């Protein structure tokens, strides 16, 4: 066991990089769940679509262009998703709708493979973010620092929106007490359109950001979806603050576990899920038990 390595700054930064990617995705998932009570199993597929779109748009324009355009395209898809799937099915059992999103994930996956092929693509970070800097005496890739920065500023922006705006307040209200909020006159349909767009837009953002960090490959959606689901459930269903906290904890557990117990590290997230769900079914953030 090497504690020097454990405590190194770059490991810390790695944990944060993973956490910020998960935070962006998981908060989108938590937002959609909060408003619609639906676990969106297509979130991983949307993230993959975002990554591939990011790759193509990045080739035509630039990475920065992709970073702006792709989330907008995904947000438009969110409109279709809300109006075409979530709204017509809102009277149905929540599990049914979740299964429909699972079906959508099965559709998006092969469609993406059809267009971009199944060979993993590596995306170069933009010139201004390539290379590495010295961080407390260690070399560290700039891009990951950028990723951490974007991840956490997204969180701050989201938190500010939730805390200080009227629509944010309504979102919190619906997430915590859907019935009461509706009785008090919150228009959930209008709000949910905004929130679902935001959620899918976030998945696009995460996809573009993931490109240069991980590689863009056909399995990326499924892999991260399971991590995201764990994060959202551990954080407390519908609780956005809980999701952010859980993403950070997840990132640290994953990275530190890889150093301490490499053979058991893969099991740690699942253990975390088991322990949290059995010990505290409402999750860390005290979300609803659904």
């Amino acid at each position: 066991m090497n504690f020097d390595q454990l405590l190194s700054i770059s490991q810390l930064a790695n944990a944060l990089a993973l956490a910020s990617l998960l935070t962006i995705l998981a908060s989108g998932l938590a937002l959609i769940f909060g408003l619609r009570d639906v676990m969106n199993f297509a979130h991983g597929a949307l993230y993959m679509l975002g990554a591939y779109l990011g790759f193509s748009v990045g080739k035509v324009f630039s990475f920065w262009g992709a970073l702006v355009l792709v989330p907008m395209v995904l947000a438009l898809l969110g409109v279709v998703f809300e109006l075409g799937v979530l709204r017509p099915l809102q009277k149905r059992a929540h599990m049914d709708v979740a299964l429909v999103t699972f079906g959508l994930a099965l559709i998006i996956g092969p469609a993406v493979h059809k267009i971009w092929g199944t060979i993993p693509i590596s995306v170069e970070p933009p010139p201004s973010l390539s290379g590495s800097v010295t961080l407390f005496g260690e070399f560290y890739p700039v891009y990951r620092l950028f990723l951490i920065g974007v991840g956490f500023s997204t969180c701050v922006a989201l938190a500010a929106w939730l805390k200080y705006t009227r629509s944010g307040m309504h979102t919190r209200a619906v997430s915590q007490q859907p019935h009461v909020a509706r009785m008090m006159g919150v228009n959930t349909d209008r709000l949910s359109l905004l929130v679902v767009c935001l959620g899918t837009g976030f998945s696009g953002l995460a996809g573009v950001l993931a490109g240069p960090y991980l590689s863009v490959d056909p399995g990326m959606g499924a892999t991260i979806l399971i991590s995201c689901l764990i994060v959202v459930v551990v954080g407390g269903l519908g609780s956005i603050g809980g999701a952010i906290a859980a993403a950070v904890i997840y990132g640290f557990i994953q990275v530190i576990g890889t150093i301490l117990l490499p053979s058991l590290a893969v099991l740690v997230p699942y253990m975390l899920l088991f322990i949290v769900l059995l010990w505290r079914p409402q999750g860390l953030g005290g979300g609803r038990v659904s």
Partner: protein
Amino acid sequence: MNISTLFSTSASSPSARTIRIWWWLWLALVMVGLALPKLLSNSFHLTLLTNGVVLGIASVGIGFLMWQCGLIMFGVAAFIGLPAYLLGLGSDKLGMGLSMAVFFSLSVSTIFSLLVGLFVVTARPLPFAMLTLALAQMLKSITMMQVMRPLTGGDDGLTMTFKGTFFGLTQSQLGKASEFWPLAWLGLCVVLTLAWLASNSRFGLVLRAIQANEERMRFSGFNTFLPRLWAFILASFIVSVAGVLMALNSAFASPELLDFGTGGHSLVAMLVGGASSVAGPLLGALLYTWGQDSFGASGHLELFTGIAVVVVISIFPKGVIGFLMQLVAHLSGSDKRG
């Protein structure tokens, strides 16, 4: 309406005579099924049908749990892969004869489901789905761990050598569709009967009542935990039968069996077929296997499955079988009137 009384899980009580007739018809169907390899000369179709039947067994198991308890087992793969590996461990590492290994694999897998069930059956549907999915992923990671390599073969999988026979079938016979068919078919028939009896008994009634309103059942003095635990164990056992059959047929187990995708096949089959009756998941599994054969080569299978899931769940919540039963009810209804 007779068809729906046979297959529907919430049947109104028909007379003892009709029930007896249906039992005889069912027995006749089982016998005809056994003779199928004689009737079906094309061995490719038989292989396909065998795969469909084995997949159907797993789907019947999760369909039972979904309809009776409202719980969807996302990690079906856990109870497909575990017994498959156990069969290999029993026959290869523990030196058991084949029949003993099958018994060992099914019983250990069922005991494991009891232990898991103690924790997970009280969970709400969504956490339940997550927990079982995590279970399957955990088992998959364990089989792929470096330290487990001598036992499980890691990524390469576990090739099994069976000693002795199972119902008089040796390893090479089990690998042949025509010889393997009776085993799969009888397995399916036993499983269907089990699930049907459980659904139409007092046990099934209690389960559905708990699903509808657990609190009220508790207030009425019912134990709401044990019936759900039994249902989980029964469902896991049924899925384990499918896992053992797969392993017997292929004599091979790989981490892929524990992958979400493997469980996904039976999950999709169950959803498309419809869980509202025992026969629905089986129909779904047969359709799925047929689809796998037709679209698998073109690589569009996943796309079509996705479309099927979306369409069936949004338009026919009770699946294809629900739609068919509605159609039959409608037609027989209009017959009576006309």
